[in-house]
């Protein structure tokens, strides 16, 4: 089976004054049809930049993005029209992602208009029902809706053209607690009902754990670990992933917390640019970490870019 989306050696640099920021620093990934893949990492890991490169809202500095085998890396917006029907982003803050002056109806109808689809009204009604929005909300503007409703509008807009891939960047981050669960349920239902493929970005490990079968861990633009979600979260190979997992609030007793793995505090100095980028904060760093870390196959399908990751025979 061919990957729906394939990313090879993706790099995206930003120039700020004299400095160059390697927001995405050599990422490879493959998204199979029907999969739900999560990307976790802290702020500054490059997850959103990666998402924008994959949806081609930005042009990568180097590397390639393939969709169904076609190289879409260098294509102009006009040439990407077909791609745009198939791969849709869902942004973190729907208030910013929806034109504040447009009504809900206009927002959801626009993609259909742009691509010259007939039967727009029927399709819009269909999609509204699909995401669970009441008909009465059609005439309102985004700022008159609740956070959860806004995000549903954003999702409706994303699926109205029947795409095959959704790239979701922290879709529940701007939504109130009470609406978060409903939104996650909606996303799961949409995925199974329409056979969608998800690339789900979040800093919240719990959400990823619930929605994604495969997980990628990013740190400062590079891939730290990748594998089936259960394995990556239960038996992490990379020290950074281990620290992430041990930082999640737990309800068991305090003594277990004493043994918690912690990152070394970040100093105000310049961040290192070579070797393992996490080494300067790693509590188990070794002299070898000054060199580029090897990619260890912990198990087939689970790899970690860490000297300390061990090859095992299977999930523990």
């Amino acid at each position, binding site marked *: 089976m061919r990957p729906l989306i394939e990313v090879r050696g993706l790099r995206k640099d930003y120039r700020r004054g004299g400095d160059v920021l390697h927001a995405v620093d050599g990422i490879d990934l493959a998204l199979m049809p029907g999969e739900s893949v999560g990307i976790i990492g802290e702020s500054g890991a490059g997850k959103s930049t990666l998402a924008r490169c994959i*949806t081609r809202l930005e042009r990568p500095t180097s590397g390639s993005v393939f969709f169904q085998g076609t190289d879409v890396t260098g294509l102009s917006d006009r040439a990407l029209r077909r791609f745009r029907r198939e791969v849709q982003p869902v942004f973190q803050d729907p208030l910013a992602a929806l034109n504040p*002056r447009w009504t809900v109806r206009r927002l959801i109808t626009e993609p259909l208009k742009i691509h010259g689809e007939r039967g727009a009204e029927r399709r819009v009604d269909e999609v509204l029902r699909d995401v669970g929005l009441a008909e009465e909300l059609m005439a309102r503007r985004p700022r008159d809706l*609740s956070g959860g409703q806004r995000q549903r509008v954003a999702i409706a807009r994303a699926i109205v053209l029947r795409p095959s891939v959704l790239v979701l960047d922290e879709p529940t981050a701007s939504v109130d607690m009470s609406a978060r669960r409903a939104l996650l349920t909606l996303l799961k239902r949409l995925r199974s009902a329409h056979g969608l493929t998800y690339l789900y970005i979040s800093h919240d490990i719990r959400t990823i754990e619930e929605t994604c079968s495969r997980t990628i861990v990013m740190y400062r633009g590079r891939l730290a670990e990748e594998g089936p979600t259960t394995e990556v979260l239960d038996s992490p190979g990379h020290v950074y992933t281990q620290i992430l997992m041990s930082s999640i609030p737990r309800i068991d007793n305090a003594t277990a917390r004493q043994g918690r793995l912690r990152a070394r505090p970040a100093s105000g100095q310049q961040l290192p640019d070579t070797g393992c980028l996490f080494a300067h904060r790693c509590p188990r760093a070794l002299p070898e970490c000054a060199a580029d870390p090897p990619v260890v196959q912990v198990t087939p399908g689970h790899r970690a870019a860490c000297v300390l990751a061990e090859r095992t025979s299977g999930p523990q």
Partner: protein
Amino acid sequence: MALAGAGFDAGRPDDAVPADGPGRSARLRGELRRHPSLLVGGVLAAATVIVAIAGHVAPPDNPLAINPGHALAPPGPGHWFGTDQFGRDVFSRVLYGLGIDVVIGLTVAALAFAVGSAAGLVSGYLGGWIDDIVMRVVDIVMSFPPFLLALAIAVVLGNTVRNVIIAVTIAYVPYILRLTRGSVLTARGADYVLGARAVGASRSRVMTLHVLPNAVGPSVVQATLMAGWAILDVSGLSFLGVGIQPPSPELGVQVAQGAPYITSGQWWISVFPGLAIILAVLAFNFLGDYADDRLRGQGS
């Protein structure tokens, strides 16, 4: 320690549909109360426009009719604003002239707004060398004080109403352009622009439907104020003898014609046209204030 279990609905308050708001006339009244500048500006502007139209359509007296027998009559029952040195009724002339100036002011504002925002949109959104060239031109034009620039252009082009409008418009366009461009630069980076591109919107569609409406606010305020300033500039140019010429009863021309008579005590020939200019400018200033208030209200 209250346990308020009653009334909790595990359903979705999220999906509640808020009730409809107040009706239109109620909203207008509320708006007037919240923004006194709308009230004042609206009344003034309405008065100005009504008066100006009346002055054109049905002036009490022919503004151009010369009547040497009644020259230099002070304000009184027959002539509320008196008569000028040719016996013309100043009141009619002021009304008529107000109409001319208001129309010119609005025309300049509209033109400057149209040209400036279109250019600012293109320059700001497309960036690159287009932006560089446009901004250099803008910098050059803006290095001249607007009035002097308009003066120079009007002198070169010749003394007609049309040329005066062109001259003042050229002086004003860069300000609107810069303002629009700034807003466009901000709007360009917004997520909803990304969202529009993501669903396949073409560049021109993104620019006109998404960026422009959200970037044009400050320029609308500016254009409203500019209508008033244009009246000042145009009447100033006419006062200097550039641009609009007598016998047109344009307000600046009237002030100029009445100037020599002030020292001999016939103040009404210049003062009333002057007051009319002030009235018109004030009206647009207040409207501009209101536009500014609304813009900020929308932004929050």
